[in-house]
């Protein structure tokens, strides 16, 4: 059962992806259309303000929840990538960072760069290079931002494996 | 007694008057001079008074508030610019007249001493016929759209202003102080009246006390001019035509039944309003010092409308007292709020406060229950 559902989700994702719409968004649009249909189906109940108070309350709560959800999934975050010394970690000669598979930022020692991501979660891939330009090590990490806004990631700490690689963003 | 007074004056006026009084009292504590503020209020009262007066005939004749004031203003602007354009010619003509009729004092008095006054008078003399013609057409138009005058007046005003934008560029003005420097044609956005008739009314008989402790300036001439205009309107409203006009405004059916030509009365009222608007802007300019063309007159109707409403007029009833009280209160608020509130709060909120107060007043008047009519 769940296998069929997963497959269906995949097909749906692929189908939506050709227009650049993510699955969540597609579901949102579907929900909206459904809501609109129901809304018309209910006739003028909403306009006449004849609904019982708890029905209104539920709708209100639903709208507020929708607001929070939109806030959560639609937020754009600035991700500062910092290749500087912190704690005992030394900056790398060069490190290439790509976020969500996008174009990679090449950071020399003591460089700082900026990338923007939309949504609460992103995948970061950091490739550390040596003097000859060979990839020494690759680290992939999924980071969840939750409701926070901008962050700075200290790459030496991240690659070094310590947990506290997230630093407050500069203002 | 007090109840009656309140009823007569109306709460909004009392509140605003108290607010204004409060501002005057608060002024010295935030470092604003009361005497200069009072002088400024009086100057602005004189500048705007005649334009507010232009509301009366139309309101009384039942044409509603004259949102089409820009039409009158345009006539005034034409008069003002033409008087400068032809300034030398006009003066030369007068000298010629003087020599022909052998009136030697004419030359001396008019051309040397009264140069500015003559320029000012010529501006008004040119503007009035233009205003009358425009007003006549405007009146004819408004007669066809009874009931919708105010909205249509607004757009007549707007479109005439934007039409004149083209005209200012194309009219064959030549005078070097008025046309654009490079091209040698087309009028400038602002034209200085310095050297022509700057402050010709304001400084006439003006009381100017400028000592260490007191800076008081009273533009007596301008105030007298306003008083004369107000008196003329007052007299006119009491003539036979004037009373007929009022009758048309308060009950058109009754007026028609008693043999008054409603449309004619309305046309006369509109012509009068337009002429007063034209004279009003010239008075305004002589004090302000600049003729503002292009989009300058665009929103000029709103302060005038707000003033008369603030003075207690309604959409279909207005008198001289409404004009005097309203203009004083409105201009007083305009002068005092920026200086006092800004000094107190250290911000520039005056513009916003003006928007809210003036439009709030108009809104209040429009939503008041009106006597059954029309």
């Amino acid at each position, binding site marked *: 059962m769940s296998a069929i559902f997963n497959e269906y989700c995949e097909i749906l994702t692929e189908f939506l992806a*050709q*227009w*650049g*719409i993510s699955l969540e*968004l597609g579901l*949102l*649009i579907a929900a909206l259309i459904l809501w*609109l249909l129901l809304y*018309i189906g209910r*006739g*003028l109940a909403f*306009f*006449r303000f004849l609904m019982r108070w708890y029905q209104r309350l539920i709708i209100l709560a639903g*709208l507020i929840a*929708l*607001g929070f959800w*939109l*806030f959560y*999934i*639609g*937020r*754009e975050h600035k991700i500062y990538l910092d290749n500087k010394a912190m704690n005992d970690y030394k900056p790398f000669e060069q490190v290439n960072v790509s976020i969500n598979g996008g174009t990679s930022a090449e950071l020399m020692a003591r460089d700082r760069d900026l990338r923007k991501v*939309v949504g609460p979660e992103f995948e970061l891939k950091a490739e550390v290079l040596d003097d000859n330009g060979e990839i020494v090590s690759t680290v992939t990490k999924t980071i969840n931002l939750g409701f926070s*806004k901008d962050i700075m990631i200290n790459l030496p700490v991240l690659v070094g494996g310590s947990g506290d690689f997230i630093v407050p963003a500069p*203002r | 007694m007090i109840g009656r007074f309140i009823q007569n004056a109306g709460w909004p006026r009392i509140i605003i008057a108290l607010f204004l009084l409060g501002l005057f009292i608060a002024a010295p504590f935030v470092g604003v001079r009361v005497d200069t503020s009072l002088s400024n209020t009086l100057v602005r009262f004189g500048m705007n008074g005649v334009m507010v007066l232009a509301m009366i005939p139309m309101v009384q004749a039942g044409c509603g508030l004259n*949102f089409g004031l820009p039409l009158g203003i345009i006539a005034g602007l034409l008069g003002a610019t033409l008087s400068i354009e032809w300034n030398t010619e006009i003066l030369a003509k007068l000298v010629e007249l003087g020599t022909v009729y052998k009136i030697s004092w004419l030359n001396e008095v008019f051309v040397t001493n009264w140069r500015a006054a003559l320029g000012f008078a010529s501006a008004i003399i040119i503007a009035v016929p233009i205003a009358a013609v425009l007003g006549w057409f405007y009146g004819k*138009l408004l007669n*066809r*759209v*009874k*009931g*919708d005058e*105010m*909205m*249509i007046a*607004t*757009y007549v005003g*707007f*479109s005439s202003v*934007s*039409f004149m*934008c*083209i005209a200012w*560029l*194309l009219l064959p003005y030549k005078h070097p102080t008025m046309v654009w420097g490079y091209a040698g044609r087309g009028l400038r956005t602002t034209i200085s009246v310095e050297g022509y008739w700057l402050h010709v009314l304001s400084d006439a008989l003006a009381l100017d006390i400028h000592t260490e402790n007191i800076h008081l300036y009273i533009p007596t001439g301008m105030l007298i001019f306003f008083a004369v205009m107000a008196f003329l309107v007052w007299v006119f409203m009491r003539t036979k035509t004037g009373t007929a006009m009022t009758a048309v405004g308060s009950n058109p*059916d009754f007026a028609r039944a008693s043999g008054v030509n409603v449309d004619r009365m309305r046309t006369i009222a509109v012509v009068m309003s337009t002429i007063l608007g034209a004279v009003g802007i010239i008075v305004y300019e002589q004090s302000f010092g600049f003729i503002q063309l292009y989009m300058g007159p665009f929103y000029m109707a709103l302060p005038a409308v707000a003033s008369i409403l603030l003075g207690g007029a309604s959409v279909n009833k207005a008198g001289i007292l409404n004009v005097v009280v309203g203009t004083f209160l409105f201009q007083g608020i305009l002068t005092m709020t920026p200086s006092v509130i800004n000094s107190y709060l250290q*911000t520039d*909120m005056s*513009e*916003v*406060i003006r*928007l*809210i107060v003036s*439009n*709030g007043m*108009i*809104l209040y008047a*429009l*939503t*008041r229950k009106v006597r059954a009519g029309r």
Partner: protein
Amino acid sequence: MIRRLFDIIANNAVPAVFIIISAFAIPLSGYSASYLIQELLTRIGRNSFLILSLLIPIMAGMGLNFGMVLGAMAGQIGLLFICDWGIVGIPGIVLACLIGTPIAIILGIFCGHVLNRAKGREMVTSYILGFFINGVYQMVVLYLMGWIIPITNPALLLSRGYGVRNAVSLLGIRGILDNLIPTVITGTQGAGQFFNAQGGNPFILLQIPLIDGSIRIPLATLIVIALFCVFIIWFRKTKLGQDMRAIGQNQAVSDSAGIPVNRTRIIAIVISTVLACYGQIIYLQNMGTLNTYNSHDQAGMFSIAALLIGGASVSRASIANVFLGVILFHLMFIVAPVAGKNLIGDAQIGEYFRVFVSYGIIAIALVLHAWKRNREREAARRSLRGNKGGE
């Protein structure tokens, strides 16, 4: 017969004049067909929602709702918040609508109450109301935001610590709805070139041999607008819609028939205000920049002008009027300045001419309508005289 002729002229004069002006102006401007069609499509997507929001108050006999700028302001406040929080994409737009809606409802109820106190003068009252609320809006945005209302993004906030900047860039939601379903029309040759310029992003491609160049179609926006048109058609048939039309015909009769006149009028204005709020959000997502203190200024003015040019009157307007109006009015906007320049050789005269026409046309349309209504009233009075007299 003569009256019928007069009616026909009064009903069609405005669109006819515009078609004639356009007929001269389009060739003079020298623009290519693909540019004109592209611009018109963009403007249909951008403006028609705003104009459609005017229809319901007209139905209820309240004239042209100049108070729609209230809704536009509500929409802008929603946009300011999502910009501050950094919400982008479709969620940003929906969230802006969600924030704007309650503000628009409150403003709409206020506007409805005010207009109920000014029956017979709705238009001029709502016009002044727009100015009044604009003052309040400026107060809120220029002084309270960042001081009492939390706004922290330095890209929005004036450096003095309170008040929002004059121009706010809406890059996060720019063209999001328009490009949701990317669609393009090209001529037979243009396709490959356009595909290259796109960098290989997927889009729906239609080929029409007549066209040179490529035309992007804001398909999703057009679908939203189409849905909204369906809504209006449906709404007319509901009980509430019927009530509104009855009130539009005659208030006294509706009142005695048991229709709550004042309440229904308020609902009409509330719907219009909320829709104007969404309309402004759609408009600004296309524009890409928000002029904090000016973007709403002309929303009402231009929407009304477009509707009137489409052949609508103060008491009667249809969906067809909206689209014809958008096309004609904006065609004028696009070609007039350049045509004026090519004709007279002075760019600014064309510009002033455009401004003059947009104000003048409202004046003419209002005059024609009032004139016609007065003639009808006069005729009615003449036929009634002897029975009751008066109105």
